[in-house]
């Protein structure tokens, strides 16, 4: 069944590809004035013409169609590319599809081996239960807040640091650069224990500030990457613009706000979005620094404690019957906000990586 659909999609893509190519060629020929209608009018004539084509088909023509001039412009190559892309793409989204299908299955559907992808009925009870256990909307609100704040702060701070590194000459710059790279390479798990002790003595444990403070000081989740992105971006601003502004009397801070920021809007958007996603998916340090509160502040952590939270809400018989339908419904509810953000803003994500300049050097 699934294989059949995949083959159908591949065939569809191949046909579409050929049709579009044909249309393009036709358009070009019309533009050059070399176009002439090859297919005659009328159904019978068309069939006749088809047989005429088949009769005159030579091996060379077929070969040219299948292999093309260099192999990678032929039809066989197209088949290969689309087959690989569609089947790997299927494997790639398989967990999401599985999640989606299973979360709508009732207990009977899950056990029934005949029900593969489409549940027998629209069963929403899994979502109701998952929603209750996760305390979805209140937790979502707090979770968003604790993600949004560090992401915004980190973006602003990193832009500042990146500008300083890109635009001014000073001693020891190489050293700071090396250290910034090192903060990316040394896993923060290596030095988290003294950090924990320090936050404890500063009364920052179980306090959202434990997540926000590192962001303020440019030591947040993957801050080093964002600093480098801003550095690359600000370095591309031509010196002449800055110099002109300087002659007009704009100081360095004014230049940053009036020239740097407006020209680096894409870097801001990319950094913010990635910061948002990475903070949303960060669980190790949130659960360490926020301790007991982490469950209430982060949806992700609530998912990790799903079974115990479930048993505090439902009877023990009910808990024993907890199944993958409910758990995957909860998982889907958690990735849903990010999925929505991603599908609306996906160009900013994918093109952001390409424009980040990491590949340029």
């Amino acid at each position, binding site marked *: 069944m699934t294989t059949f659909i995949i083959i159908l999609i591949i065939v569809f893509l191949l046909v*579409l*590809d050929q049709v*579009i190519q044909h249309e393009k060629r036709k358009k070009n020929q019309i533009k050059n004035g070399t176009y002439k209608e090859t297919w005659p009018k009328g159904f019978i004539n068309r069939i006749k013409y088809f047989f005429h084509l088949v009769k005159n088909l030579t091996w060379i023509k077929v070969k040219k169609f299948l292999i093309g001039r*260099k192999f990678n412009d032929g039809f066989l190559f197209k088949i290969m590319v689309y087959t*690989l*892309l569609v089947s*790997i*793409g299927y*494997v*790639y*989204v*398989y*967990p*999401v599809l599985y*999640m989606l299908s299973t979360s709508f299955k009732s207990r009977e559907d899950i056990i029934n081996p005949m029900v593969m992808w489409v549940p027998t009925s629209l069963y929403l009870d899994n979502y109701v239960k998952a929603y209750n256990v996760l305390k979805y909307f209140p937790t979502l609100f707090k979770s968003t807040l604790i993600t949004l704040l560090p992401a915004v702060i980190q973006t602003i*701070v990193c832009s500042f*640091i990146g500008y*300083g*590194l890109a*635009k*001014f*000459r*000073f*001693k020891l*710059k190489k050293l*700071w650069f090396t250290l910034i790279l090192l*903060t*990316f*390479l*040394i*896993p*923060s*798990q*290596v*030095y*988290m*224990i*003294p*950090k924990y002790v*320090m936050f404890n003595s500063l009364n920052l444990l179980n306090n959202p500030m434990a997540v926000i*403070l590192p962001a303020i*000081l*440019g*030591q947040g989740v993957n801050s080093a990457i964002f600093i480098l992105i801003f550095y690359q971006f600000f370095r591309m601003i031509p010196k002449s613009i800055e110099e002109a502004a300087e002659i007009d009397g704009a100081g360095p801070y004014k230049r940053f706000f009036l020239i740097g920021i407006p020209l680096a809007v894409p870097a801001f958007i990319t950094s913010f979005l990635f910061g948002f996603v990475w903070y*949303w998916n960060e669980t*190790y340090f949130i659960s360490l620094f926020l301790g007991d509160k982490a469950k209430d502040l982060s949806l*992700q952590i609530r998912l*990790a404690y799903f079974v115990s939270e479930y048993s505090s809400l439902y009877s023990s018989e009910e808990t024993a019957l907890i199944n993958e339908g409910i*758990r*995957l419904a909860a*998982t889907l509810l*958690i*990735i849903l906000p990010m*999925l929505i953000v*991603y599908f609306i803003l996906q160009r900013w994500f*994918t093109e952001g*990586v390409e424009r980040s300049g*990491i*590949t*340029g050097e």
Partner: protein
Amino acid sequence: MKMKNSVREAIVGYSFIIIWIIGFIFLTAYPIIMSIIYSVNDVTIAGTGIKMQFSGLANYGVIFSSAGSDYLTALKEFLGQVILRVPIILVFSIIIALLLNQKIRFRGFFRTIFFLPVIISSGPVISELVSQGAAGENMMSSLTFLDSLQNTLNPVIADPIVTLFEEIIIVFWFSGVQVLLFLSALQKINKEIYEAAAIDGAGPWESFWKITLPSMKNIVFVNAIYTLVLLATYSENGVVTAIKNNMFSITTGYGVASAMAWAYFIVLALLLLIIVLLFRPGRESDKG
């Protein structure tokens, strides 16, 4: 006057990055030094605060005793995973990038799909997917060779391979960023080089090995390091969870956990060194 200008510029420059330097000193450098100190001390938590008693390398010794067995097995498992997964992720993302670089319809759509996991893969979500059998176990269960592999080979070698296949989708899921980086590197290669090579009689196969791969050398290096860091800091990684567990364990505590963290770092540094030696971009390699 000129001297004064450069001093002023330095002051302004430092005013921009001072916040990072402060953060680095307090939130990175100081904890790093302290955690080295913890790792060679017997750390106990008293009512007044932390008490330390120098104990040499005893904490590192604990790793090899029974108290550290969880950590040690996790570390071995991690090593096996890295050795298998880094090359697989690299090769996989090059293939995907090459496919996406062809003239195809719905390129944006496919790119969206291959980047999707970056958005949704957090530790709890992935562990939920793996435990609920959405990570490809069903797809791979038909491969009977896994059973025979498990039965014949030494478990040290067989286990990473079997888990690799059971979680193959999740392994692929770690390659979202790498695919895009490879893709943008591919698009920067000058098309004329391929045309010149084609005139000289090079087919697509030769072009790939002689043009494409050498010009992506730098980005292979970047991606190899990125993949290693990604796998090392992944929150459900057995080693980092073992460190966290030992931190709050009565038998081990902060000292031993710090020693474990540093032992982990040494292993990572060695892996990093291997990557540098294997993929180090040449100095004279053409840039841009």
